[in-house]
């Protein structure tokens, strides 16, 4: 019974490793995307994965001091992607 928390922690560490791997894949798309919209979509996914990683870290350590950071990044990521979308439109329109 006492090995279950250790197992759960190990599973969470594996989750963090998988998140890092998927962030590398998304970064490849971010650097290689043919158009600006591909890079924008990849950047959105990267922000979402960063949020996921912060929540997993908070669950792993039981330290809830990063939860307001998650709220703030969720706000700022939306504003950033929408603003960049407007500039992308201006760039590829003409």
């Amino acid at each position, binding site marked *: 019974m006492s090995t279950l928390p250790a197992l759960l922690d190990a599973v*969470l560490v594996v989750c963090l490793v998988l*998140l890092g791997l998927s962030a590398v894949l998304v970064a490849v798309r971010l650097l290689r995307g043919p158009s600006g*919209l591909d890079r924008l979509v990849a950047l959105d996914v990267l922000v979402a994965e960063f*949020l*996921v990683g912060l*929540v997993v870290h908070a669950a792993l350590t039981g330290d809830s001091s990063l*939860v307001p950071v*998650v709220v703030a990044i969720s706000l700022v990521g939306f504003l950033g992607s929408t603003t960049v*979308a407007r500039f992308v439109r201006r760039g590829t329109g003409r």
Partner: protein
Amino acid sequence: MSAAGDVLLAVPPPDPDGTLGLVLDAVGTVSIVLGVVLTLVASVGLLSLPDVLSRMHAATKPQVLGLLLVVLGGALYLRTSVDVWMLVLVGAFQLVTAPVTAHVVGRLAHRGDGVRHDLLHVDELTDSADAADPGPDPSETDEDEDEDGAGPSHRPGAAAGRSPDGHHGGSTRSSLDSTE
């Protein structure tokens, strides 16, 4: 043995949920694992799918369902009311804002070259998007008023009749550009 039982009963206040907390941790771990696997699959899809619209389809997974699953798992780990409500706020905000970004990006991708039209079976935006665009040329409205003085009752029918040959406005715009 009774002493051990007393110790176990005396311990709970700092950790009020022994086996219940363990069950909640296990359920939270399962939820987090599901969300992370979804995120990994979406990243692979983001790398391997052909155009912007399919990549958006892949990108929606970690943005909405994956983040919701992970936030649920985190809320099951941190069982404080402030943290739970902040994580609920994160999930609700993501649910509200992800469609807005997806709408803008999808529309821009359809206007630009982000769509591979040979992969589409039906493309409903090709005819209706330009007709539904606000801001047509002012010369067209002038022509309408000159053609039939019947007033605004005929205008929707006239606009719907004009929408199939949408090249009219484009030709006038190109002629304007050529004159300028």
